[in-house]
């Protein structure tokens, strides 16, 4: 084997090992905190007696007489997302950089159908 061939083999092997290391780390260990807006549904429990003789329209859904059974509360939580998940989100424009430097999911519920670009 020539000196040049040895140099090439050494460089290629080192680069391949480094690349493999990066791939394994990225796929298996690398996570990043992402702010996600979660919809939290809470069952509404009225105090005893309040359901029956409530004041008109006090508890009811606007425009109806129905009493809401649950309320939906939106809360921003920070979740660690793995790099493969972040790659998937990036392909559909699901991540953005917030003003405070943290990552934020651009949607809540169903993901966007396609990349915005």
């Amino acid at each position: 084997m020539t000196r040049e061939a040895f140099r090439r083999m050494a460089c290629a092997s080192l680069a391949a090992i480094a690349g493999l290391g990066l791939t394994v780390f990225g796929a298996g260990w690398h996570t990043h905190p992402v702010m996600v807006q979660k919809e939290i549904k809470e069952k509404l429990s009225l105090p005893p007696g309040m359901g029956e003789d409530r004041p008109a329209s006090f508890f009811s859904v606007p425009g109806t007489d129905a009493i809401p059974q649950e309320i939906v509360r939106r809360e921003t939580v920070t979740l660690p997302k793995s790099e493969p998940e972040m790659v998937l989100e990036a392909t559909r424009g699901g991540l953005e950089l917030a003003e405070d430097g943290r990552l934020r999911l651009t949607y809540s519920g169903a993901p966007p159908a396609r990349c915005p670009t």
Partner: protein
Amino acid sequence: MVSMAESFFHTPASKFSRYRTAIQGLFLVAWLGPLGLRVHTVCAPVFHCYACPLASFACPIGILAQFSALHVMPFLAIGILVVTGALVGSFVCGWACPFGLLQDLAARVPLPKWDPPYWLTHMRYAALVGLVIILPWFFGESHPLFFCRVCPAGALEGSVPMMVTQAAAGQAVAWPNAMKLGVTGAVVLAMFFVRRPWCQILCPLGAIFGLFNRISLFAIRFYPARCVDCGKCGAKCDFGVSSRIRADDPRCIRCMECVHCGACQIEAAWQAKPSALAADLGVEGVRER
């Protein structure tokens, strides 16, 4: 040696490279998700937009740009590119890239071809550093020059199918922005008059793999003792790179059109050895650059 030059098209390499278009086609099938596979959590090492309705994998350049805009290091994408580059260098460009295949097919139209000057090929590095890394980092993905917003592969593989789908469904067609349309139009037009214009002048992925040509495990090697200076290798090269002068030129896409005579050949690093003929003549057996 003269007989070697005469038998230019009768070496194993020439037989193999004859099937290059078919092999590119097979890779294209793999990138287009034959089983409805959409593994967008992983990048394939080719230039193929993930906005394509059939794309199997994510585009590494799109991910580099998006992650740069998010200020996150894309270990997975970089790792895949480094492993691929270290093993095969720019073989990927010549044999597996779907956008390369498109340009190869367009170049078959018999029209006069123009060879861009050498300095213009350095634009690839400017595109890689400027449009893929620096601009997204400072201005985010909403900037009009953000790479994906001007990428012709994205327009042809993502926007066009989407527009056709919208038109077929009777919906309002969402056109790409003017910049993207302009770049795409220019690249498509150039495909007919310049061989692989995108690869030669602007492709950031080709710029990355080209850098690995000097160290990749599998490479083209030049054996000076076997060369008769017939110049056919240089004449065969679409990029004006002569393998006998610069076997590891970053512009080379390793299409293997130039290795038919036997003076240059595809080898793994461990196979390289001084040729017996060279030893007889007392000259350097293998030249790698």
